């Protein structure tokens, strides 16, 4: 409790002077944590996934007070979308290109960046999400997409809200991925007969690769001949000393 009284004093020392006071009054989250390893934090960040009610995932700076670590929100980070492939760009990854008209392009990795520099249109490049959505390969319209929204106003921290949000994210994510895989399954259903036909034709043409011609003359079915293997009782007793 007395720690909260210390806050303005502590922060006055540690804040960079460009820090906007207006943002402060919105109620930034301050946590008191035991010392966490950096990898744990990043895992924590990654597990939350896309942005829902709280669009900012803060990258915390650590102030050490005795054996406690005070995490102060000095910077804020967002999980962005790669402009080219639409995958999420986590903080510390990728390159941001700022064009002279102030349009910002974010790339998740150099692959996307290089494709952009080649002036390729992502809607025409097959492995990107833009292409898949445009050509109906992936699910485009679903109510689960509406839960994810970009917000520019920071939310006042509420522990219950944060907890419920994290639970909801997991659930909504699962539902969305289930629906997406169903979409793909349904899409592939219509071509099943065609695919089987083509497979059968391929087998007929290439049966000499699968089955010897003599065997084919004897038994003209397209299945492989069944080979019978005799397993004797004596062999299983010999294997037992191996277990030791």
């Amino acid at each position: 409790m007395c720690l909260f009284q210390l806050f303005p004093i502590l922060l006055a020392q540690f804040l960079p002077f460009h820090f906007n006071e207006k943002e402060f009054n919105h109620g930034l989250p301050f946590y008191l944590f035991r010392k966490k390893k950096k990898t744990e934090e990043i895992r924590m960040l990654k597990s939350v996934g896309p942005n829902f009610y709280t669009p900012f995932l803060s990258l915390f700076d650590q102030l050490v007070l005795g054996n406690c670590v005070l995490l102060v929100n000095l910077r804020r980070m967002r999980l962005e979308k790669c402009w080219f492939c639409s995958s999420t760009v986590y903080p510390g990854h990728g390159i941001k290109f700022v064009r002279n008209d102030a349009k910002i392009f974010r790339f998740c990795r150099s692959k996307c960046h290089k494709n952009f520099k080649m002036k390729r249109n992502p809607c025409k490049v097959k492995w990107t999400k833009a292409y898949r959505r445009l050509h109906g390969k992936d699910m485009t319209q679903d109510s689960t997409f509406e839960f994810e929204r970009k917000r520019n106003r920071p939310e006042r921290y509420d522990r219950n809200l944060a907890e419920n949000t994290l639970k909801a994210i997991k659930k909504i994510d699962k539902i969305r991925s289930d629906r997406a895989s169903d979409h793909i399954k349904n899409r592939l259903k219509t071509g099943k007969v065609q695919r089987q036909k083509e497979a059968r034709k391929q087998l007929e043409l290439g049966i000499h690769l699968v089955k010897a011609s003599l065997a084919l003359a004897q038994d003209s079915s397209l299945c492989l001949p069944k080979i019978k293997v005799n397993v004797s009782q004596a062999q299983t007793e010999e294997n037992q000393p191996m277990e030791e």
Partner: protein
Amino acid sequence: MIQPQTHLNVADNSGARELVCIRIIGASNRRYAHICDIIVAVIKEIVLNTPLERSEVIIAIIVRTHKELKHDNGMIIRYDDNVAVVIDQEGNPKGTQIFGIVDETQFTMGKDTIANIKTSIRNADMNRKGTIQIGYLNKK
């Protein structure tokens, strides 16, 4: 990665339009300059009727580079061109406005090259562009 002979655009209303880098201020044999570094440059092109003249040697600070700038927090930012702002010996800008996008964190936080510029430079993240008034000169 600005080096001598690099042509730079100018992002303020000091009167210069294009500069050519002559020297990078810092260590004696310094090869490249990045954002926030001070260079000595010669003016190649000017805006008419301004106090600056062509082939005048001035000092400038680099504000945008085509080469990526790596932040300590892992963010890498690249701009579309090489741009500088004309300053004088003490570090005060010669113009009164800065045009275009400037990376806020580099100029207001750690690097103390331009201690005297108290500009309200908006971060490119906020998707704003436009002119920035240099506050301490009290010109609006």
